[in-house]
């Protein structure tokens, strides 16, 4: 569930940002997508992309732990 929430929020908030940029600059969707997410050299965007990946990994781990806890509870019953 955490992973699903992570992916949903990531995709929808990126879409929101892109839609606002499209409106502001009068550009197409793909132009704005490219403009927003391309890792240009020297912009240090890789730092936040790395943080984002750690967030995704954390959500995998959290989901695994929660499903493990739930199955242990079921077994205990």
């Amino acid at each position, binding site marked *: 569930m955490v992973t699903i*929430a992570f992916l949903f929020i990531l995709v929808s908030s990126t879409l929101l940002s892109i839609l606002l*940029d499209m409106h502001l600059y009068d550009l197409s969707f793909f132009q704005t997508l490219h403009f927003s997410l391309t890792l240009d050299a020297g912009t*240090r965007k890789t730092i936040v992309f790395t943080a984002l990946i*750690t967030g995704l990994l954390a959500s995998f781990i959290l989901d695994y732990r929660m499903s493990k806890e739930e199955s242990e509870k079921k077994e205990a019953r």
Partner: protein
Amino acid sequence: MQKELVEKISLTQLFILVSAFLFGSAIVVGIGGEAEQDSWIAIIVACLLSIIPVWFYIFLVSRIPEKNLFEIMEIAFGKMISKVLILLYILYFFYISARVLRDFGELIVGDMLVNTPIEVISITFMLFVAYILYLGLEVLGRFSEIYAPYLMGSILAVGILLLFSRELHVKNVLPILPEGIGPVMNTVFPKLITFPFGELVAFMMILPYASKVRYAGKTTILALMVSGLILAYSSFVQIATLGPEAKLRSKFPLLTATGEISLWNFIERVDLIIIFVVMFGILVKISIFFYGGLKGLELVFNRPYRAFIYPMAMIIAFMSIIISKNFAEHISEGISMVPWIIHIPFQYGIPLLLFPFVLWKSKGLRSEGKKR
């Protein structure tokens, strides 16, 4: 077994949270600049007019006790429709958190840590917010109690120090209302009424957790008025020091004004202390919006909100960077589009839509309670 963490805040803490929330990024980027020398009047007018929507938010929360905005929506609209609306609100709360974080990041890299990447500032700050929220709302409240006197004291001290530095020129504020009330009202609607005052909609997620719910509404309105007056004072000081044009051109007018403080060739560079203090307002604002979004996720995905903290904090840090290429674009988006497209629907549209349903459902709940 994990110890249950407390989710209650006192009225004093609520007062401080509302005040710090309103100062938040408003004090950093400066508000009401479009009204030129009358921006302080615009802030007072917006503050007074904001009592109506804030009272409305309090009314909605008080009709169905001990329920936050999302739980009220679930009662009013049913599970399916409310889930869609809650997801939209989560996006709104996270998006605004990212915008506030960007304001702070730009302030820090522009004036304090000039060689540090803004990305590092965003990630570090979100880790800090995540840790506070992981410990619970009460920790945020207690943290605020410690920090609040420094925030309010510093904002008030700036004016006094500028006065002693002979940098405060009242002629910059004159003439008052040279073009009538028109420019003031144009600044109030929709800019000031949505940012920062309308953003108090996020407190519909916090009010049910106040220890004395009966007085929470009065406390919120009192905090709104006090903060409005302090914001107006701060704006007055900025105009009197810089003049209306320089204030409008300045990226961070409060800092530019504070930079003018010079007493006995000894007390100088006070702006660095101000940044440190302003950080608290930003922290509260991001935390409240982030907390609102997390509570929404808790309701939609049926998992404790603490499970979402780290992953969502990283999304906000990421969003704060990709929302705009530079500060000019960030501000331009914030002025021209965010109030109309983002703020008004979530601050006024959906709560107004909720109103008849809340009246209807709360009547039903009350009559059920009487039958029992």
